[in-house]
């Protein structure tokens, strides 16, 4: 397993590092953890004695809770290090904080930071595994993985097959529209890369001011400003949150105008083809990028994405912390014992 993209001594910093094979492995292992989540006691002893630290320099309740739930269900010990308060105010640098926490004996750091590249920096300073839980406008790999897991699950249900046996074949040629504030969205960046690796055909739909300055290396089918024109022909409509707190408002004439051109209103939802899936990473701005009632449509996967998030993060932590080591003793394990 030494060739695996996720394994002992490795990190999850970017979806691009994983490749199609790595993404497939995460999704496959996540299947096993979805089953764990359905049990009367949804907990396994796999990472007993390991310590996972969530280091969030930017508040995000849902992602932090999702990672902490995942770590606890693997029986790991969890330390939470909210960086917004504490020692940062006293002038301690990120490096000092990280090295201090690392000295307590930590196996994995889950890092959320407003600056792109911060998790990669942390990975240089510690001997623990580092998981990028969102860095600036750069990447949010576990969100992309849980979105891919959700798409794969929905495709398998539609086809009446077992998600495990279907693998990721369903992504080939799958038409996905990623709609909204792509410029400020690390979710979009990771998702577009993941979908590209799996062979999906992704179209970005956004106002000119909310597309990134350079798309050259993105695996995209098209970039368009006309949402109505693409809705009838997509399998997945992925709505991004308008990140008003990151200054997205300054790029728009008004939020209302954004909604009228790019919001999935009830009128627009009617343009979606039969079987199209509506996704959103949350938290939703109801009445802005998504209509008040669209999230309740049967085709919306918003809460399913949250549920799958725990299983996918369990898979990532297990692959990083639990699947390492070398085979030495034939009696130590392997087939047929």
């Amino acid at each position: 397993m030494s060739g695996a993209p996720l394994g002992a001594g490795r990190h999850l910093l970017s979806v691009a590092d994983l490749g199609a094979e790595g993404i497939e492995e995460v999704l496959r292992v996540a299947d096993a953890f979805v089953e764990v989540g359905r049990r009367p006691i949804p907990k396994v002893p796999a990472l007993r004695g390991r310590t996972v630290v969530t280091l969030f320099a930017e508040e995000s309740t849902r992602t932090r809770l999702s990672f902490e739930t995942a770590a606890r269900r693997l029986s790991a010990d969890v330390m939470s290090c909210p960086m917004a308060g504490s020692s940062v105010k006293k002038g301690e640098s990120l490096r000092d904080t990280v090295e201090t926490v690392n000295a307590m004996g930590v196996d994995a750091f889950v890092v959320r930071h407003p600056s792109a590249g911060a998790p990669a920096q942390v990975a240089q300073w510690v001997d623990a595994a580092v998981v990028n839980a969102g860095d600036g406008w750069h990447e949010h790999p576990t969100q992309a993985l849980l979105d891919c897991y959700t798409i794969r699950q929905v495709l398998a249900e539609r086809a009446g097959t077992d998600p495990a046996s279907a693998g990721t074949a369903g992504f080939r040629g799958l038409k996905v529209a990623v709609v909204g504030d792509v410029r400020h969205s690390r979710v979009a960046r990771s998702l577009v890369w993941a979908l590209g690796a799996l062979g999906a055909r992704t179209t970005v739909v956004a106002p000119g001011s909310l597309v990134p300055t350079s798309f050259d290396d993105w695996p995209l089918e098209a970039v368009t400003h006309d949402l109505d024109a693409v809705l009838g022909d997509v399998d997945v409509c992925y709505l991004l949150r308008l990140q008003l707190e990151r200054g997205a408002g300054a790029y728009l004439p008004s939020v209302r105008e954004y909604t009228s051109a790019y919001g999935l209103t009830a009128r627009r939802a009617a343009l979606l083809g039969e079987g199209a899936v509506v996704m959103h990473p949350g938290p939703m701005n109801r009445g802005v990028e998504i209509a008040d009632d669209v999230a309740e449509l049967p085709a919306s996967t918003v809460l399913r994405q949250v549920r799958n998030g725990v299983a996918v993060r369990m898979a990532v932590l297990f692959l990083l912390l639990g699947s390492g080591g070398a085979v030495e003793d034939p009696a130590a394990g392997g087939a047929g014992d």
Partner: protein
Amino acid sequence: MLSAEDVHRALVRIAHEIVEHNRGLQDTVLIGLQTGGVPLAQRIGRVLEEIEGATVPVGMLDVAFYRDDIGIRPVLPEAATDIPGDLAGSLVVLVDDVLFTGRTVRAALNALTDYGRARAVQLAVMVDRGHRQLPIRPDYVGKNMPTRIDEQVDVSLDGVVLGDVVPR
């Protein structure tokens, strides 16, 4: 070492032994360990249905997350876990292809407790090859087969083969 007929005969005998030992099939659940034990458990289930006329639930269990060598060697779940309902009060017969060190069975016993408190757990294996590292013994054995520790035992419904370990 064993032909397909030998394996089938052994499974039929094990099915009879399960009925005899437990005086029927009250609350019995068969659980095959992934991956080698699952086809054997399914075959035993069909034989039990033929001889007793009762349907016995058959589940499957992957013990990867309960292994004691996580972090020491590569451990990944190989296949699905599917346990039929709550195991509280049931008589579980674990089925595996080869009993070797006993560590897989130890992991399976731990996993089972997360599905409810079974009334009893018994162990059926196609081949007991020895070299136990834990105090675990089978209740039903297809064939006792003394082996060298570096030999490999391959069990399928097509038979049992003994060979050298394939270098990894």
